[in-house]
């Protein structure tokens, strides 16, 4: 298994972990009543705004740790640049990820058309973020394994 394939697998696992841990805290706050009545929009707005830097910081730390572990276990340096194939795979994976997020966005808007509570829309949006992120990584893994 190449470095990029391993990186994709680590990224999928870390994304799932980050979202799981973060949403345990969010769920606790939700149950305490932070998302009820008038402040529902400010609650979900802060959830999304905090999620973005938390996820970026956690991913950077996990990436650094995984590069160190890769170096120790394989005695091989991780590639320090992306060539044309890497860039093409990244582009295609990003495109696939965007398709998934667009679908989720439409679902979120649909929830409002069907008069569901605003929390449902935000939950669908955040879930779309998670699924699109994972789908992008799975796409990368697929293209690296099967060819492009």
């Amino acid at each position, binding site marked *: 298994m*190449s*470095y*990029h394939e391993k990186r994709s697998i680590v990224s999928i696992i870390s994304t799932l972990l980050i979202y799981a841990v973060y949403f345990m805290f969010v769920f606790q706050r939700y149950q305490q009543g932070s998302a009820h009545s008038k402040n529902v929009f400010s609650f979900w707005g802060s959830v999304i705004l905090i999620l973005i830097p938390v996820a970026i910081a956690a991913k950077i730390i996990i990436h650094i740790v995984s590069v160190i572990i890769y170096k120790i276990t394989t005695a091989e340096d991780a*590639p320090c*640049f992306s*060539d*044309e*194939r*890497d860039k093409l795979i990244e582009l295609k994976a990003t495109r696939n990820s965007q398709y998934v997020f667009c679908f989720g966005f439409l679902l979120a808007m649909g929830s409002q058309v069907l008069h569901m509570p605003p929390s449902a829309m935000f939950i669908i949006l955040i879930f779309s973020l998670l699924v699109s992120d994972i789908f992008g990584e799975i796409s990368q893994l697929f293209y*690296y394994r*099967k*060819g*492009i």
Partner: protein
Amino acid sequence: MGKCHIRNHIRKLRFTHDEMTQQQLAEKTGVTRQTIMAIENGKYSPSLELAFSIARVFTTPLEEVFSYHAEDDSI
């Protein structure tokens, strides 16, 4: 994903050029070893620029490194 119609003789050319390694070819063409491996295995069709660069390393015309085969081999 379309089937790769471009075949190559990179492995043979590496062998005839002092058994050049994939890593050495990758360094000379400015790509990663994984990309050279993917091209050799027919999992990736290189850009025109990279194809010319590989041919240049072997000091061979492009058509002696790569060849195009249509689905029915009629072209």
